[in-house]
């Protein structure tokens, strides 16, 4: 079987998703049996003109980055968005505000107008170019990444869960965060991560994005039941799903 020529690129992000590839440890060696990295700045010093499989990590926050991304898209047969930043903008969307100049001043003070500090509202990769597949999560799950790469190498379509994180909590016998009186987004968030956050002692903050048909009405009722407000829910949802959070009305 011919190895897929793989490239990895990053835009505005923490590069934690790429780190997951290194974190596969010995599994990385297995991966190298089916893909050949031809460009991966963080790990190797090669560059290439074309790729079968391009992974793009990070959000798009500048005009020049849109161009770079479009160029990558042109060279790539399959383009996969890697991690929340790439899939839906992730935490980077939190900076989007009506007044971007004010945002620049907040960080760079008097120097904010210097041209190299220009920034635009955060976009997900899919808002700039066509994305063929997504690996969700912040960071993405190593298991899911491996699975998706294997599917692509075997020329079949990966199937990823569309049900909420609660399923995985139940299977792990994790005690529900609502029992600790905490606002957990697991009820409306796509599973596939194996629910590490509730198992690790924290609520799910929704990094994999919402399920296809989130029952936000249901979520509001739960807030009442546990003495929380929709504002609590929305403020947590904003972290990784600011677009949806804004649509979630309430006091």
């Amino acid at each position, binding site marked *: 079987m011919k190895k897929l020529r793989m490239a990895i690129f990053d835009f505005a992000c923490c590069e934690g998703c790429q780190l997951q590839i290194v974190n596969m440890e010995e599994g990385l060696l297995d991966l190298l049996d089916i893909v050949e990295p031809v460009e991966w700045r963080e790990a190797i010093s090669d560059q290439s003109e074309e790729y079968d499989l391009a992974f793009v990590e990070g959000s798009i926050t500048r005009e020049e980055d849109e161009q770079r991304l479009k160029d990558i898209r042109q060279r790539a047969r399959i383009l996969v968005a890697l991690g929340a930043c790439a899939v839906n903008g992730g935490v980077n969307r939190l900076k989007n505000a009506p007044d971007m100049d004010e945002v620049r001043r907040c960080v760079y003070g008097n120097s904010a107008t210097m041209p190299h500090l220009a920034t635009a509202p955060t976009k997900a990769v899919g808002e700039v170019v066509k994305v063929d597949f997504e690996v969700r999560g912040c960071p993405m799950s190593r298991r899911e990444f491996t699975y998706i790469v294997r599917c692509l190498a*075997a*020329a*079949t*379509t990966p*199937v990823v869960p569309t049900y909420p994180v609660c399923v995985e909590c139940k299977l792990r016998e994790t005690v529900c965060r609502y029992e600790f009186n905490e606002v957990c987004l697991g009820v409306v968030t796509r599973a596939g991560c194996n629910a590490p956050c509730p198992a690790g002692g924290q609520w799910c903050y929704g990094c994999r994005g919402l399920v296809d048909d989130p029952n936000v009405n249901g979520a509001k009722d739960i807030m009442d039941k546990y003495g929380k407000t929709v504002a609590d829910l929305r403020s947590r949802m904003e972290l990784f799903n600011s677009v949806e959070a804004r649509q979630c009305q309430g006091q």
Partner: protein
Amino acid sequence: MMQTPASTTAEADADLYLPRPATVRSRTVLTATEMLFELAMDDGKPLGHMPGQFVEVSLPGIGEAPISVSSSPDGRDRFELVVRRAGRVTAAMHDCRMGERVGIRGPFGTHFPVDGVLRGRDVVFIAGGLGLAPLRSAIQYVLNHRKDYGRVTVLYGIKSPVERMFLDELDDWSRRPDMTFMETVDRADATWKGNVGVITRLIPAAEIDPKRSIVVACGPPIMYKFVIVSLYSIDVANEDIYVSLERRMKCGIGKCGHCQIGGLYACLEGPVFHYPVLLGVEEAI
């Protein structure tokens, strides 16, 4: 954890989930999305199915999908499947070349009563789209034993002319003096000279004698609603209707729970149902 290599135990033969090897003997493009496969079990034995039954087709690393047997049981060691490219397994199946191995479980499920109540009666087949695939098995069977049945009518409805399958057979059917074949398309194109409109239009025109006929229908979920109403309008009784239903299936043997239609299992009590059984089963049609 202990693993018993099952090939060494007698029990392995009894593993309901273990596919048996079969080989692709030929493949024929039917339409842009449908392909006909001729398969033979590697053990050389006939599949042993009845018209209307289905098999579970496995491709390693991709998965399994239920597919109706489209050929009539005729004693040969070959059988035919029509596969529409719909998802993972069916797409990978389309990539299967001659000589490639697939896994087969089954045949499973109920069948059309070709050896039972159909005998001696007028038979009306109503096929919507891919529904022709399973019905073809029964149609062939009936035609092979033509003298056992009364009038034979086949009504075939399809979205557009390019989706017609088995053109030679359709042609043959339309010429045969011992049967009636009528077809219609939802949308005609430049080449199409025949009927245009939904399949129910054919029903009044088919001169079905409600007293003598048994109707056997197979098509997409939406088709049944209209076909049944139309059959009522020509006084066909519930007792004289059989339908074949499709549901999601993960085992084919009544364990996985996916294909439940109310309390019925599409893989055990179906896919072929005597229509009265479905009356009052809200999820059925």
